[in-house]
Each structure stands twice: as C-alpha cells, then as structure tokens.
C-alpha cells in the first residue's frame, strides 16, 4: 500500500488490525486517545467490535472475556489508567490469556501531566500487579518499528498464552512519520483449544481461571508460568546495538530517547569520543547478552531515560559490577535534548563539568 503519513497512536491501531486484531476495549486518556478514536472508526470496517469501556478496569476485564474466546484483542491506556489495569493484568497472566496491552506513558506520579515519559518502566517490567510473573514488554522507537512489533506482540501473546505490553511515550504516540504496512509473515501458532466458546462440537466443558485454592496446586501452576518465562527469556529477547564494536562508552536507551541519543552519539564521535548504544527493544526479557559481551571492555555505561532512573537497575544487574553504570535522565514530561545527552557523554568521557 506504499508509505503513508500517520500519527504513532494511529499506527499502533492500524498495525493491530493488520495483525488480525478485531476487538478493542479501551477508555480514553491523553496522550493515546487517537488510538481509541481510530479503532472506533476502523474496526467496524473489518467486521470487528470497538467498545468504549466505562473505565480502564472494565476495559481490561472485557479483554479478559474476549481473550478467553480465543479472539485477538487489544486495549491501551496511559500511566494512571495503566495502574488501574494491574489486577486485570495479573489475572490474564494467572489464567494464561493472550492479549496486547498498550501503555503510552506520560509524566507521573499521580495525575502528573500528559507529556512524554518512560517512568512506568518498573510498573511494566517488574510486575506492577500482584503475584509471581513477568510478561513481555516491547518498546518501539520509530513508527515503522511499531508496525513490526505490534505484529510480534500478538504472536508472542498467542505462542505463550500471555499478555504482552507495548510501551511507548507521548512523543511516539503524537508524532508523524511515513510508515508502510507490509503483510505480516504468517507464523505457526498453537491452536487455541483452551478457549471457552461453548462446548458444542468440542467435547467437555472448559474452564478459564486463575484460582487454585490448594497451595501445592498453585505452586505447580506457577512452576508452569516460570517455565514459560525461561522459554521467553530464551526466544524473545530483542535489542539493537549501535556503533558498540569500538565503543569506550555505551549509552543504554530505549524508545524515542534512543533516537535522540543517536544524534548525540554521532556528534560525540565527530569530536572523537568512541561512544555507542545498546537499545533494548524487549524491556522484558531484558537483553543481557550485549552487556555480557561488552562489560569487560567498555569504560562505562550510561543509562539514559525519561525517568528518575529505573531501567538502570536492569542495566546494573546485567553488568553485574564489571563496569560502572552512569545515569542521565529527565522526567516529569521533559524530553532530554541531544545537546544535554551529548554533554553528558563528554562529561563522562572527559570529565568535563556540565
């Protein structure tokens, strides 16, 4: 269909439709409302259903119901609304229901504001909900990458019977870039013989539940969930390395921040500082390999985030003391400029005062 110019939020929606998602339940919140509005117009065209839920809680539980029938379903929100979905997400994990949940992060805590942020990193990667779980979190940094990762998100969800989170920030949701929707590569996915669609034809009653009153029984279930986690850690790690081969310093950044950092890196290299970047694309499973490969030869890492410092914990866990890990972040909706990142690089490299 060639390149089109769209807003990030609309790209997520259209990409979901291309991925075969015909059901969307959501509640408006800036800065992701365009996604909801787009679905309202688009889904009826493909014979799907868009429903504005009365709340984020209703939305995630409608997703729970729809996912239970085996349908591809999505919801999306932003930080405060995402917090309200935590119980529902924990239920989806416990009942092993596939779904894609989008969080277009804004400034927090509390009502905060509607400017871009990455300060929900902990919430999305460390199980903002209760109980033992991790779930895949994908963080695109361009609108074209949204197309690919949205497709992946649905496939991962179906393959492992798990909710998957797409995380972006207000900037990614609001900006426009040319994108192209190529037809998705079809994948072998397990049949959804667990879905509750009525027993006609398919034998005895099926049950979808996360309840297991017997402790040993629940531990067994959790063991199964943990095995899936091991599998995902093996198969679903995604990241990009940028000019790290000769790098003395490595910036770690994801999403739109990685793009800004890229400009800063190139400027610093013009000034002779060998700096590169590791861009985690899957925030969970967090890419450890690129750190293990580089941690014994780089002088230091710099975690650059639109937060007060959250991903840095995963970076430190991956580096495990082999090299210092520095931090630069802006938060509350402030987007770090390439200039400040450049200065941070120079400061770390040359000890320049900034």
């Amino acid at each position, binding site marked *: 269909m060639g390149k089109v110019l769209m807003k990030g939020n609309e790209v997520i929606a259209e990409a979901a439709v291309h991925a075969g998602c015909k*059901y969307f*339940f959501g509640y408006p919140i800036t800065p992701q409302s365009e996604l909801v509005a787009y679905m309202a117009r688009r889904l009826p065209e493909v014979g799907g*259903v868009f*429903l504005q*839920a*009365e*709340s984020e*809680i*209703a*939305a995630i*539980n*409608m*997703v*729970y*119901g*729809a*996912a*239970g*029938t085996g*349908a591809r*379903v999505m919801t999306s929100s932003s930080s405060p609304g995402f917090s309200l979905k935590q*119980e*529902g997400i924990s*239920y989806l994990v416990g*009942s092993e229901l596939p779904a894609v949940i989008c969080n277009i992060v804004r400034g927090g805590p509390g009502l905060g504001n509607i400017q871009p942020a990455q300060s929900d990193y902990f919430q999305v990667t460390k199980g903002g909900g209760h109980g033992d779980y991790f779930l895949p979190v994908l963080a695109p940094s361009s609108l074209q990458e949204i197309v690919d990762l949205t497709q992946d998100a649905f496939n991962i969800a179906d393959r492992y019977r798990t909710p998957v989170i797409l995380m972006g920030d207000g900037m990614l949701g609001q900006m426009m870039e040319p994108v192209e929707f190529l037809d998705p590569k079809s994948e072998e996915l397990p049949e959804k013989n667990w879905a*509750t*669609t*009525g*027993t*006609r*034809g398919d034998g005895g*009653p*099926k*049950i*979808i*539940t*996360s*309840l297991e009153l017997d402790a040993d029984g629940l531990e067994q279930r959790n063991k199964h969930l943990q095995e899936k986690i091991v599998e995902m850690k093996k198969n679903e790690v995604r990241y990009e390395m940028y000019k790290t081969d000769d790098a003395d310093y490595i910036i770690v950044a994801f999403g739109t921040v990685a793009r800004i950092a890229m400009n800063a890196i190139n400027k610093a290299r013009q000034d002779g500082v060998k700096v590169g970047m590791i861009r985690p694309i899957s925030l969970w499973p967090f890419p450890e390999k690129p750190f293990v490969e580089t941690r014994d030869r780089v002088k230091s890492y710099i975690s650059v985030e639109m937060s007060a410092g959250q991903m840095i914990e995963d970076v430190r866990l991956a580096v495990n003391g082999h090299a210092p890990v520095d931090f630069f972040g802006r938060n509350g909706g402030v987007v770090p400029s390439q200039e400040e990142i450049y200065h941070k690089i120079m400061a770390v490299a040359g000890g320049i005062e900034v």
Partner: protein
Amino acid sequence: MTMKTVFQKTKGLTDKPTHYCPGCTHGVIHRLVGEVLEEMDILEDTIGVASVGCSVLSYEYFNCDMTQAAHGRAPAVATGVKRVLPDRFVFTYQGDGDLASIGISEIIHAAARGEKITVIFVNNAIYGMTGGQMAPTTLIGQKTATTPFGRDASVQGSPIRVCEMLSTLDSTAYIERVSTHDVQHIQKAKKAIRKAFEAQKLGLGFSMIEVLSTCPTNWGLDPNESLDWVKDNMVPVYPLGVYKNKME
C-alpha cells in the same frame, strides 16, 4: 407396578459435590440455573462467568464452558465474551458483595449498554466467603463482622435495591426479584430465570434475576431458621416481583 422418575439431578450440573455450607441456598440456585440451561437445551452454547464470592467455584459445578472473573468484574468479562460470540448465551453468577459493592459500576454499565447477557444475582445480605462482613444489601440493624453494633443508616447508609436502580435504565430487558425461602418460591425463581434467558435469546437486551438467598453460617442461624429470616426480614425490604419486562 414400576417406578417413574419424578425428580433427579439435572445434567446442567456436574457431579462434583459443592463446597457450600450445609443448607446454603447457593446450591438450590445452581440447580435452578442448571435445569433451565438443560431444558432450553443451550448447555452447549453457553459460557458462564463465575464471580468472586462463595460461588467462585461454581465453574466446577455448572456443566458448560466457564470463565472466572475478578471480584465485581463479571459483567465486563461477560461483555467481552458476548461481543465476540453474539450468538452464544452468556450469563454471570454474582453475589451481592461482588455485584452491588465493588462491582456496581460494571453491572450498571453492562445494563446501560444493554449487553445481551443474563445476570444471576444472589443476594444474601452479607459477604459470605470472607466471613460475614456488611454488604450494601445488609439490612438496617443487621449485625455483621464489620457492623458489630448493627448496620446504622446514619453511618453506613441504607441498603441498595439493585432491581429498582437498574430498572431506571432504558436498555434493560428483563429484571425480576425472586426468593428461595420455600419450595413454591423456588419454583417461581426457576420460571424467572427461564424468562431471563429467553430475553437473551430474543436479543432484547440486559436481563437480571435477583435471588434472595441464605447464609446460615454467617447469619448464625440453622438452615431452616435462615429460610424464615429471608421470608420475615429480607422480603419486606426487597419486594419480590418483576421490575422490567420488554417481553410483553
């Protein structure tokens, strides 16, 4: 002379013994729903949604596909199911704490949207599963774990009458309140449940049957006393009858 079976267990229920306390009418209501599903021959086309309450394990007792919803969210879950499978029958089975307290938003909006689902609302004026705390349906003066001195209208407010409230919504199709305190009312209750599923079949909109039920354990009464308590204390506050009927 041989024997003809005049009463036996419905195929609408599995053979699993329930975990309910002795004399708890949850079991009776289960039976009625099971019988209706069997008699309408829709067991194979039905997805039930269990809520959080003593009836959480009802997914092991109803002999059809079942899914378990978070506390209070059954109507939202049922909405998700029904919107994907409009030609299936979807029902929720919810207690009064689940539906009228934490879940009042989900039930009202499902009703306001006219979701074509059937809600079985079991009102026993208390939180059974968690050990007898006050529900929005707890009667004035009733002692519970969280109203040790009896519910006081000036502190905890007055009981919520769900049927009356939902009837103000245009998109509701069939709403009736029934009771289980004797055999005759139990039979009435079954007819009402049947009507609700018929309304769903006709696609008329949202249907709900509120069933007055017992909680001998947390009321501190024996099962037979409990039936009387329903008759003498609950029925006056929760008048039985049809509150909305779009089938005529």
